[in-house]
């Protein structure tokens, strides 16, 4: 499939079929090499291959998300809404002067969700709910869910009932995103959501505010996408771990601040060389994945993640809002046409072509296909996805994630996979 150059200043057009693939890297931006303000490294300590100076900001934002949100409220007097799935229309919340933050788990074994969620549902939704039950998001003024899979829905509805919260909203995001009727339907649903926000906040959301919000979100996506673009280089100037920290942070902090950090990152990035060799170029794809420890483990075995298809990665920011008739209709169209989650990718399986295009553009040698245990939507796609990748000559390693991953057992599989991919001089 053809991978065309994208008009500057916008992300690749919506949808799939490889149209979403960035062009070949453009020449390094000359001049300024200003760096992002280097913040104090969090307790985690720095890992080899992780550049605290360039990426410490993002890690700090992720690690200290609660402190950040509390400080933001102090500073702006605004409200913070936690959302559960990346189908949440952040534009509306920005327009309302609300800070949307994504609710993610903590990767600790926990024993508080058994009474609320049946064990056959994914560990991720249970981990998310555990955060609420443990009061780790006590700074939220509201929660909202854009309808996606059944699993995360339970984290939302249990949170609604058992965690005191001022405002909660369930947005019936259409599933049939391939239907021409999905955008008009969502446009109307966004109006209802907008009204509900207005009632809650006691003030109107003017179209002007929506336009600004669209700009804020688009700019951030565009910058993220430009950083990702550099990973096409034979020697990417950032590791998969760093990229993950960067995207995760963008789901937790004010996008304007995040965009500023990205600007300075981009300025320095062209000069930057990762200290360790790139090794095997890997792609990681599958369900929700914010397991930094896992990514670090894989990259410590002589590999670098150069691209992903995750809702904590490209699926989150790949598509821009393209302005058409009204702001709400434009936003609706963006969420309908974005790179889909498997739960909405039917009757056509558009994700497969998209993943193949990414693999090609980023010159991927192998792919780690991961999945949250019990994640049905992905389990329903993985055989087709794996088949297509293998047919395209890309070997795959499948791993099933739990809240905590048994690093020991996974390391053997990962190393064996890398040995298999490397033209190792053992014979």
């Amino acid at each position, binding site marked *: 499939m053809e991978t065309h150059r994208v008009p500057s200043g916008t992300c690749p057009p919506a949808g799939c079929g490889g149209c979403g693939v960035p062009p070949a890297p453009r020449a390094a931006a000359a001049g300024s090499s200003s760096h992002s303000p280097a913040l104090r490294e969090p307790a985690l300590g720095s890992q080899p291959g992780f550049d605290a100076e360039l990426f410490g900001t993002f890690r700090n934002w992720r690690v200290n998300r609660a402190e950040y949100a509390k400080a933001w409220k102090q500073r702006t007097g605004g409200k913070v809404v936690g959302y559960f799935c990346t189908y949440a229309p952040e534009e509306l919340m920005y327009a309302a002067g609300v800070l949307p933050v994504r609710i993610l788990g903590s990767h600790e074994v*926990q*024993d*508080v*969700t*058994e*009474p609320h969620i049946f064990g056959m549902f994914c560990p991720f939704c249970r981990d998310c709910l555990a955060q609420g039950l443990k009061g780790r998001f006590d700074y939220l003024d509201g929660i909202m869910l854009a309808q996606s899979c059944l699993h995360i829905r339970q984290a939302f509805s249990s949170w609604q009932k058992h965690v005191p919260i001022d405002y909660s909203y369930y947005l019936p995001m259409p599933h049939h995103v391939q239907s021409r009727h999905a955008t008009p339907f969502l446009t109307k649903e966004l109006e209802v959501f907008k009204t509900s926000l207005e009632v809650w906040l006691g003030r109107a959301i003017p179209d002007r505010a929506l336009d600004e919000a669209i700009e804020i979100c688009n700019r951030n996506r565009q910058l993220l996408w430009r950083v990702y673009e550099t990973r096409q280089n034979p020697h990417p100037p950032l590791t998969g771990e760093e990229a993950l920290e960067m995207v995760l942070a963008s789901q937790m902090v004010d996008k304007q601040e995040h965009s500023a950090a990205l600007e300075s990152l981009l300025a320095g990035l062209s000069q930057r060389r990762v200290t360790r060799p790139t090794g095997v170029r890997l792609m990681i794809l599958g369900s929700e994945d914010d397991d930094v420890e896992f990514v670090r483990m894989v990259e410590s075995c002589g590999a670098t993640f150069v691209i992903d298809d995750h809702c904590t990665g490209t699926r989150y920011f790949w598509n821009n809002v393209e302005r058409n008739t009204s702001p709400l209709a434009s936003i609706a169209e963006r969420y309908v046409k974005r790179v889909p989650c498997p739960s909405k990718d039917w009757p056509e399986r558009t994700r497969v072509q998209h993943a193949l295009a990414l693999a090609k553009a980023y010159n991927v040698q192998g792919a780690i296909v991961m999945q949250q245990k019990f994640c049905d939507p992905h389990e329903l796609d993985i055989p087709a996805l794996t088949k297509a990748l293998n047919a395209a000559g890309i070997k795959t390693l499948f791993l099933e994630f739990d809240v*905590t991953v*048994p*690093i020991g*057992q996974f390391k053997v599989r990962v190393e064996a996979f890398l040995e298999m991919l490397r033209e190792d001089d053992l014979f």
Partner: protein
Amino acid sequence: MIAAGIDIGAKTVKVVLMSDGQVLARRLVPAGLDTAGATEQAFQEALRAAKLERSQVERLLATGAGRKTCALTDREITEVGAAAKGVNHLLQSCRTVIDVGAEEGRTVRCDERGKVVDFAFNEKCAAGAGTFAEGMARALQVPLEELGPLALTSRQAVQMNAQCAVFAESEVVTLIHAKTPREDIARAVLDSIASRIISMVRKVGFEKDVALIGGMARNPGFVAALKRGLETDVFVPEEPEYVGALGAALAAAEP
């Protein structure tokens, strides 16, 4: 009136003989592969210890997983009911009984009369039962009875990542290779069993006082982990494995 409670479990058979609320004798015999034989043996030994004739025992009641196979009586009470009655006799203020045996964990909520209000079993998974501790003790190369005391000497909490009992064993091996101190691994093992048990306890919702019975109650490391996790004190009777049989004997004596 003399009453007998017979608890036929997966690993052992327990018999308690009582007279008007007083325990006359108790016996425990490994079930082995001949449960009927073990039951008969335990019963006779108990009779001998209490200097009683079989004919003097007016009421018999069986409980435990094997209660339906009991040749001595066809009157029965479930493990759940027996546990509640037994603990109520020992600690009237008890509202939540946690029973962790070799292959199963149970939580029973009861009222001040020892009547069952609600109960939960841990779903079939060895990772929340005594057998798990056995396997891990072996991987750690310490006798089972030393696992608990060893865990108590641990100074740092390590997280067990593997969820399946048998895979946890290879994780223990991984931890060993990673030079993790044995006592910390021992604690990690018991913490992970406790965490599964606590999940189940929370499902029923627990009310104080909380009592722990069954084989795992003998494991101080496990008891400590349970207290830590539930953030409450946990009452452990002196003979935790006899509580079921005791409850059965009490039930048998009831008019």
